[in-house]
């Protein structure tokens, strides 16, 4: 999923300060799962903003709503009846949702309430870690199901650097060495010798090197 973290309240206050009525909009997908921008977080942030603004002697009317998916135009359309009189929208979705709103409501300012972080997975309750960088040409089949692009600090495609120690990356004891993980997997799978095959230089066009990417499915596109 796409992970995100709530921005500091101070930054969000600066965004909404000029307005009297805003729409605070959550998303029921990834940001709900990572507890950054779902229905619950919408409620908490609305109270936080109202309290902070009251303290400074002003007030704000915050409409709260959470869409099933902010990155989907069908759901965004639901907002049309409730946008009337709203001076600005604060989105608690990832950057995709924010941009979907900005594209649909062209004369309404849209502000992000979260920092979109990475594509990751949950390691345990309350901990998410990066797993994929969307390089567009998946090599997990060659690397035992562990991604060196997302998980090696140097994106090394051919083995660990000289800084791998005790299974940890040189950048920090809390970071696993991706190549130690890959090696452990290759051993468990009896595929040690496959390590010797050289992975050639990557074609980054699929990874964003040739500009913004798009998928067009002719069988589905209208």
């Amino acid at each position, binding site marked *: 999923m796409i992970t995100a973290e709530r921005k500091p309240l101070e930054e969000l206050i600066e965004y909404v300060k000029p307005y009297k009525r805003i729409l605070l909009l959550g998303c029921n997908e990834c940001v709900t799962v990572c507890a950054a921008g779902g229905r619950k977080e919408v409620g908490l942030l609305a109270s936080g903003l109202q309290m902070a603004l009251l303290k400074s002697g002003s007030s704000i009317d915050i409409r709260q709503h959470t869409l099933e998916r902010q990155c989907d135009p069908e759901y965004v359309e639901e907002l049309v009846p409730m946008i009337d009189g709203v001076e600005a929208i604060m989105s608690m979705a990832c950057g995709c949702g924010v941009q979907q709103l900005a594209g649909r409501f062209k004369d309404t300012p849209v502000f992000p309430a979260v920092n979109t972080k990475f594509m990751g997975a949950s390691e345990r309750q309350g901990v998410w870690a990066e797993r994929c960088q969307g390089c567009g040409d998946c090599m997990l089949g060659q690397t035992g199901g562990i991604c060196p692009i997302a998980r090696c*600090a*140097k*994106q*090394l*495609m*051919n*083995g*660990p*650097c*000289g*800084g*791998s*120690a*005790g*299974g940890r990356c*040189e*950048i*920090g004891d809390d970071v696993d*060495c991706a*190549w*130690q993980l890959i*090696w452990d997997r290759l051993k468990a799978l009896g595929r*040690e010798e496959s*390590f*010797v095959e*050289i*992975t*050639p*230089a*990557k074609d*980054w066009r699929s990874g964003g090197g040739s500009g913004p990417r798009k998928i067009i499915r002719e069988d589905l596109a209208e």
Partner: protein
Amino acid sequence: MKTESNLEKVLAAGHLAVTSECGPPRGALPEEVVKKGGYLKGVVDAVNITDNQTAMVRMSSFAASVITRQQGLHPLLQMVTRDRNRLAMQADIIGAYSLGIDTILCLSGDHTKFGDHPMAANVHDIDSIQLIQMVKNMRDEGKFQGGADLKGPSPKMFIGAAANPFADPFELRVMRLAKKINAGADFIQTQCIFNVDKFEKWMEGVRARGLHKKCYILAGVTPIKSVGAARYMKNKVPGMDVPQEIVDRMASVPKEKQPEEGVDICLESMERLKKVEGVAGFHIMAIEWEEKVEEIVKRAGLFPRPQV
């Protein structure tokens, strides 16, 4: 012979080669490069010119290599994949070769986290093994990485790579060397060897795969200046293996005698390493202590350097 590299000639003639290194200054100070080069002239077969080592901005390896070359030394251009993409690196390779630089060391580079620009993006368009492949392809096939033909003579670079026998997973370290050789590495410079036992064990694996016959392995050594430096390398430098007995030995002599002790330890290691089958020479990393290299080379019986 694949190149005109002095280092290749020395190695091909069967001599124990000696290289050392020079870290460029953090400013437009060509005289500092010349000063360090002066300590090494006639003492070593090639001088590594580091490329933003420890992820700190310094005079470019390319520029300092040119200065060193003008001084009459044989620069060994270090190139890390951290700071530039494949276009920039290939441009530098043909540029460097055009200015008489014929020896290169392909590295991935220290992570930016350790330097003074931790906020910078790490490029890593390609990795060190892919860099070796790229240089080899430019040299032997006359092709750019993108597939187009180079114009004019191809850059005849003698291609080096690094190996760290002390990093984990240990069992992978020989295979990683094999991979670098398959990619096109002609010679290897190892991480500083303080744990000679472990290095010997690694070399057993190297010989078992016959890798010592496919490339030249230069054993990395470093004279330690003080017990503080020994402790720092033991505890703080990623991928460094400094046995406790070396720290203890440095600590056992008074401060003013420690530099001498460090050089003695270095020379003792070199004597042991000379006997290891497959060691083709030494890479002496006397960090900010270049003036000591001459003494080490002489006391190790490696002076004068062969004229080839």
